[in-house]
């Protein structure tokens, strides 16, 4: 399929339509013309259109953007997008993300963790929708808002909480902190403090996957990499440079934009000449998809497509998820600039509430099932805090251990021995 036309097709149909309902949720933002005014050029445009949205929630079937889903839907208006198991898995993952982040806020204000902590509340659908489709060997690269990506990828809540507390049992031995979550076992490649910095790293991981297939002749290697980043990053050079390289070499990567409209206090609309980020994909020769990032099922359908493309060696995809963070940029952000009406609008589109409604209305789960999950997750999070509390802080001996993979890199001291042979080195007091 010609990717340009495929892109055009997808990018001109941001939402699939519910043809029976002229006042459907999606209608005001959709136009059949390619120049649909998604977001518009002012904040007001988005909000005024959204005021109609609250009243007309989806009824029944959740629709998603991809053509695949549209076809499914046309075959049977009653087909569901997930099974019960899948539904509960998604629900649990999102609840874990939400509960964990709420606990982080508590712990921060109690002085258990410090520095810059960026919480993911409200964006769970993106993390869950994408990452739950991955295999363990697939890689995820995130930003500083990475706690929930880590949890979705499988890093234990205990390890993440300990890392936040700065304990030696943290996933990075306490050396990374909130913004640097890494896990070799789960192929979480970070956790980056500077925006855009992780995108080339993700491109490199995708390159390795292609290299394994073509040079190392591991024919069945179809590992995919997901790069998550925000709207602010989409104005950064590294973003564009990597879109180019990924499309050029057809790397197995999906670029996932978590467009929550705000880069700290800078509105996306004030920072970007053309705010429709998904349109930037076709400029580089890859499909650009826009999806409602507050709806985990829609995200999941789009993700299936994009990840499938990458696995089959068809190259990268740019997916823009319209989402929102309920809290400030970080726990230090007073969050005074955002319009309360905007916040209320998105609060009403809470992805967890939406999924819960879907599960119950479609008899995939009962209230009791979901409450049981809520309780289970509460316990997991409590346990994580307890574990982190009880874990030891790193001793000074840890200071120099991981600076170099090969500690000979500290060089040869005046006495002719390598510095790493100095007993003080292992104590962490050696002068290097």
């Amino acid at each position, binding site marked *: 399929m010609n990717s340009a036309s495929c892109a055009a097709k997808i990018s001109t149909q941001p939402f699939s339509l519910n043809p029976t309902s002229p006042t459907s949720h999606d209608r005001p933002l959709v136009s059949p013309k390619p120049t649909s005014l998604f977001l518009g050029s002012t904040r007001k445009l988005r909000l005024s259109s959204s005021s109609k949205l609250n009243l007309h929630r989806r009824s029944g079937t959740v629709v998603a953007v991809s053509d695949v889903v549209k076809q499914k839907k046309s075959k049977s208006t009653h087909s569901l997008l997930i099974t019960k198991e899948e539904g509960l898995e998604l629900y649990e993952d999102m609840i874990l993300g939400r509960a964990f982040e709420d606990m982080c806020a508590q712990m921060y204000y109690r002085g258990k963790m410090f520095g810059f902590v960026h919480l993911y509340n409200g964006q769970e659908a993106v993390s869950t929708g994408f990452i739950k489709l991955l295999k363990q060997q697939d890689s995820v690269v995130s930003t500083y808002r990475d706690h929930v990506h880590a949890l979705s990828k499988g890093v234990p809540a205990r390890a993440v909480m300990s890392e936040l507390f700065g304990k030696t049992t943290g996933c990075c031995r306490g050396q990374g902190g909130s913004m640097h979550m890494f896990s070799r076992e789960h192929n979480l*490649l970070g956790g980056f403090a500077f925006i855009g910095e992780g995108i*080339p*790293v993700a*491109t*490199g991981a995708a390159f390795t996957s292609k290299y394994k297939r073509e*040079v190392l002749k591991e024919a069945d290697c179809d590992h995919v990499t997901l790069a998550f980043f925000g709207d602010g990053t989409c104005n950064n050079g590294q973003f564009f440079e990597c879109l180019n390289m990924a499309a050029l070499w057809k790397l197995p990567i999906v670029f996932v934009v978590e467009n929550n409209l705000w880069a700290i206090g800078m509105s996306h609309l004030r920072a970007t000449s053309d705010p429709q980020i998904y349109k930037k994909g076709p400029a580089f020769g890859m499909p650009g998809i826009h999806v409602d990032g507050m709806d985990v099922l829609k995200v999941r359908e789009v993700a299936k497509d994009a990840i499938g493309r990458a696995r089959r060696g068809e190259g990268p995809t740019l997916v823009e998820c319209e989402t929102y963070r309920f809290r400030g940029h970080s726990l230090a952000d007073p969050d005074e600039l955002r319009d309360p009406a905007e916040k209320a609008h998105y609060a009403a589109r809470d992805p967890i509430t939406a999924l819960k409604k879907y599960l119950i209305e479609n008899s995939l789960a009962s209230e009791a099932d979901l409450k049981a999950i809520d309780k289970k997750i509460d316990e997991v999070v409590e346990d994580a805090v307890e574990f982190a509390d009880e874990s030891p802080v790193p001793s000074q001996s840890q200071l120099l251990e991981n600076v170099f993979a090969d500690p000979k890199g500290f060089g040869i001291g005046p006495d*002719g*021995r390598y510095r790493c042979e100095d007993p003080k080195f292992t104590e962490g007091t050696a002068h290097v």
Partner: protein
Amino acid sequence: MAAIFQGVGAAAALSSSLSNSFDSKKFVSSPCRPFSVRKGASFAVVRSDGRVNLNPKGRRAQQLISNAVATKSDSAAASSSSKPGHELLLFEALQEGLEEEMERDIRVCVMGEDVGHYGGSYKVTKGLAKKFGDLRVLDTPIAENSFTGMGIGAAMTGLRPVVEGMNMGFLLLAFNQISNNCGMLHYTSGGQFTIPIVIRGPGGVGRQLGAEHSQRLESYFQSIPGIQMVACSTPYNAKGLMKAAIRSENPVILFEHVLLYNLKERIPDEDYICNLEEAEMVRPGEHVTILTYSRMRYHVMQAAKTLVNKGYDPEVIDIRSLKPFDLYTIGNSVKKTHRVLIVEECMRTGGIGASLIAAITENFNDYLDAPIMCLSSQDVPTPYAGTLEEVTVVQPAQIVTAVEQLCQ
């Protein structure tokens, strides 16, 4: 610039019996360096000490560096190596080292601008793309920050990339990735990910290349924790350092120099590497320690010729390892001569020389009879005009004057 000079140390210390024949008071060997000696069936580490002696009596006849930038080669030196070795130019030595490592380990790959079909703008990767394919020798778009980051991501996930900066100056654009990710990710991930990347390229002042193509980035990178920096200066150590850098699990930045690519030398046929953390003894002496690296080594050796004629006996050490410093070799020299002159191409402010002065003063202050002198480039953007460019870098005449001053 074609220069011919005999390699030093090519045959040195391949067999321990030979090293025992040396007067060990003169050359302090290092008995306790387990890591530097790796003997195996396939290769041997050659000690970096070049044994050059002025007194042929009682010493094994070694090649003399009669001229830093020699115009004619000495007659074939008595080489204790059983194989004849082969002659090549420095860029060919780099290519040979790279090619051998790519054959040895299929995970080694090259990324950079024009490294593939063009063969590298200084021909270091010539022929490699034809041999290994376009994916192993990857022609990248002009996006230093991103392809360096891509190299880092590839290194984290199991490959061993060699990233070429067409000119070291271009790596200023990759500073974000080099500093934040290359240097730090091993640490911030708690040791989970290793970054066995090699970042290499030509830098230094060339022939009227203009300010931006004449930069010395070693001073900018030296503060980055978690990386190693080495500078090659001869075909022998170029190949050795290239191979060692590729085999190292640490990220290594290998600095080459634009004017040294056509140096010719005879190097061993057998596999060898040069230790990344060791300095190279170029010319032992008694009166003054001259520490240098890269191209300035040749200006120093040229000055050494003049100095010898004037009756001085300088000890010349090519520090090679810019980060970390080999304080053992340097320290032993300081303890012997008590006078130090540093000759470098870095800028005066915040250069390698500045750090070296600090390190020596900290560790060997008691052994100094005079303050350390440091000759660096002027803190000036390198001008285009040849006459001006010449005076921004240290010239042999200045080195002679400095030594005379130091030895008063």
